[in-house]
């Protein structure tokens, strides 16, 4: 016979305001099985918890119902309370009379009635609870970081620093990400490569870090502490161990018409190339779409000039599996395509460029050797117009609804750099708002105006069109109530940024959730900003939302500390509320296996003995270490053979009955 205790929490006035807690406790006293029912102001407090413990002992309770806030808040608290009083922790049920009741009902009578019903349902459930034992699973002490931008590099360095092995899987031939493409960085204007390259070298030299470049994640299975990941390392056609990065091949390669991705397509590269001088690994790669040897069989020049004998036209993709305890997504971003914004003339004139292209133009290692010249004719520009918010804050369907956050600052940076190096160039910036929160950020922007004489114009540009060898920029000057038509030599568009397109596929593999803009979602927007809702998956950098380098690095460190906290454990306590199949009922139809998102179900041939049966059958078996207790299989099973421990079909029906009675 079960002996149930009910504990109704006031939650200060949170619950006790719209719900008559005394009446709830009183009503529960007459429910069969309930031997004790009481209220207290804060059940989660020390005093509240000791009241529960005392009652468990005094009334020899076999089950506890706490009517309080969401189980997400305090289910664990009260389970531990019960355990301390000698009760199995899984004999505790929470009736959520706050989020599902007091917070949503204004009418006290309605709120009170609903609280009573919810409490009754919880009692009905706990009457059928059985004591459960949590198991443990081992933690594999190795982390995977997906994406080798500044976010991924920093996360990997911090994890390695704590003594754990970490792999970086980077899809492009080198690590470095967008930061490698930047010229100078706000707010201090230090050279991007000068601060990034040492970190890239550190990562390469760190014996705990394995950089797997030109690779992608193909499959992820398993669970926190124990992921199995399939990685495809694409063929480079160059032996990474032999290549010395001398670049002799690049000098001889006759196929020179490849778009140079690193320079945003502003110039060309050879079919065999090293993305940039400081690339890591500093190893050449052959673009198979462009290589004459690979396409036609004729050429082979690079093989002849390579003194290290590193070229291998027969190299194939390598696919391998590795085990990890934790995974960090650090897949970064790209600027949006500007096809939907033809009004800015991007497709009509080479002298209309994006801000990232502008970074390359200003960079000493860029396509113009750092000389500010027009891409169309190589002439020195005299008037440059910058346009902010291109495709950001756009709810018309053409762009992105969010603010890209970094472009106000980098536009101020570009404007300042131009004025500093070329005082003869006039710089105009069209803006809707100038958003510069951040340490020393607004001062930075004001410096552009006050010291460097950048002309900030409040208003948006309506259109840009070529006229002769000039560009006409027609836009609003809202402060002066004018429509301007500026003659410019160059126009720079601060294009919105969006998550890397590969992130969505990755999120599916990781069962990590995303928002409608394809940024990874954090487990809690305030309190758990670097964890994904999927245990063991963490977030670093712009893949979670727009941010600049200082914020990216801070988040990267935070993600690393969460990973370290996980890897430092030898075992994780597993959730015992997992599925179990009743072999007598199972007919081996395989439907549960198909719906299980974690791959926890397999089948065995087994001799089944029961009333009137004795035969060998194919039956489902759940791996309790892999099962996450989602319940997909239990509702799918046509024979009703699958049941979730702690949430059995019987228990759920009992709850429904209690509510409907």
């Amino acid at each position, binding site marked *: 016979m079960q002996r149930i205790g009910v504990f109704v929490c006031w939650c200060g006035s949170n619950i006790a305001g719209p719900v008559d807690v005394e009446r709830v406790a009183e009503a529960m006293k007459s429910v069969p099985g309930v031997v004790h029912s009481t209220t207290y102001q804060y059940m989660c407090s020390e005093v509240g918890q000791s009241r529960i413990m005392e009652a468990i002992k005094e009334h020899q309770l076999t089950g506890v119902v706490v009517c309080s806030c969401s189980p997400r808040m305090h289910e664990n608290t009260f389970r531990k309370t019960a355990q301390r009083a000698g009760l199995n922790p899984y004999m505790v049920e929470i009736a959520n009379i706050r989020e599902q009741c007091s917070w949503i009902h204004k009418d006290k009578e309605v709120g009170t009635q609903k609280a009573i019903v919810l409490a009754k349902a919880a009692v009905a459930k706990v009457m059928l609870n059985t004591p459960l034992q949590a198991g443990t699973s081992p933690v594999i002490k190795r982390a995977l970081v997906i994406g080798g931008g500044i976010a991924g590099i920093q996360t990997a360095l911090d994890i390695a620093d704590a003594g754990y092995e970490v792999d970086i899987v980077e899809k492009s031939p080198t690590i470095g990400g967008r930061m490698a493409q930047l010229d100078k960085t706000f707010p201090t204007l230090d050279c991007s490569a000068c601060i990034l390259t040492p970190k890239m070298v550190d990562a390469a030299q760190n014996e705990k870090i394995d950089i797997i470049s030109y690779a992608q994640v193909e499959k992820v299975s398993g669970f926190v502490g124990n992921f199995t990941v399939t990685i495809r390392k694409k063929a480079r056609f160059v032996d990474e161990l032999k290549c010395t990065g001398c670049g002799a091949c690049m000098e001889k390669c006759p196929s020179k018409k490849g778009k140079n991705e690193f320079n945003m397509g502003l110039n060309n590269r050879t079919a065999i190339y090293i993305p940039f001088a400081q690339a890591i690994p500093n190893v050449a790669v052959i673009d198979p779409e462009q290589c004459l040897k690979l396409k036609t069989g004729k050429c082979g020049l690079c093989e002849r000039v390579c003194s290290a004998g590193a070229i291998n036209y027969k190299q194939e993709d390598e696919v391998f599996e590795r085990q990890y305890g934790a995974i960090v997504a650090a897949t970064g971003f790209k600027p949006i395509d500007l096809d939907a914004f033809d009004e800015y003339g991007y497709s009509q004139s080479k002298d209309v460029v994006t801000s990232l292209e502008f970074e390359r133009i200003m960079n000493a290692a860029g396509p113009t050797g750092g000389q500010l010249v027009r891409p169309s004719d190589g002439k020195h520009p005299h008037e440059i117009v910058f346009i902010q*918010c291109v495709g950001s*804050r756009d709810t*018309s369907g053409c762009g992105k609804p969010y603010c890209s956050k970094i472009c106000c600052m980098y536009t101020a940076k570009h404007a300042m750099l131009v004025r500093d190096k070329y005082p003869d160039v006039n710089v105009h910036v069209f803006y809707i708002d100038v958003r510069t929160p951040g340490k020393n950020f607004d001062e930075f922007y004001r410096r552009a105006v006050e010291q460097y004489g950048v002309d900030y114009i409040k208003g948006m*540009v*309506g*259109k840009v069109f070529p006229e002769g060898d000039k560009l006409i920029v027609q*836009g*609003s000057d*809202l402060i002066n109530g004018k*429509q301007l038509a500026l003659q410019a030599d160059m126009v720079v568009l601060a294009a919105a940024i969006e998550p890397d397109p590969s992130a969505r596929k990755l999120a599916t593999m990781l069962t990590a959730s995303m928002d409608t803009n394809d940024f990874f979602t954090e487990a809690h927007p305030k309190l758990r900003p670097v964890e994904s809702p999927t245990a063991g998956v963490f977030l670093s950098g712009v893949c979670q939302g727009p941010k600049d380098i200082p914020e990216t690095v801070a988040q990267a460190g935070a993600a690393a500390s969460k990973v370290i906290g996980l890897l430092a454990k030898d075992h994780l306590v597993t959730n015992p509320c997992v599925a179990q199949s009743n072999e007598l009922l199972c007919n081996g139809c395989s439907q549960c296996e198909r719906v299980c998102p974690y791959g926890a179900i397999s089948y065995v041939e087994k001799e089944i003995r029961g009333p009137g049966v004795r035969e060998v059958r194919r039956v489902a078996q759940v791996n309790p270490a892999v099962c996450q207790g989602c319940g997909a299989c239990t509702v799918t099973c046509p024979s009703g053979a699958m049941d979730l421990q702690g949430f059995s079909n019987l228990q759920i029906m009992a709850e429904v009955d209690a509510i409907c009675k």
Partner: protein
Amino acid sequence: MLHENERDLRETILRISAVDVRKCMKCGKCSGSCPAYEQMEYHPHQFVAMVDNGDIQALLDSDASFKCLTCYACTERCPRDVRPARLVEAVRLLKIRKQGQNHLKPDAIPAKLEAELPQQAIVAALRKYSK
């Protein structure tokens, strides 16, 4: 607080146009796009702001709504999908209604017809011009 009359006018304009003026983020892209900017006393972004403020009488008193070319550049390019041209149109309509519906009547068209006149202009004229 707006006067009752102003409130009514505002409601009418919002109803005719089906525009949600609160979506405007005051970027000025509409007025940066408008080819009739110099001819219009009030510019597309001002139509949005003035309707929001209930300042309809000033719009009715102005000939700005008749200088609009109905090119829809403002509406096409607005990043918040506000559609200022519909407000211009609504002001024009309200003005015509107030004048006792004395806009161009179909019967009067044949006499005015010129062979070169595009179809669209006739349709636009019906909407726009009083006798």
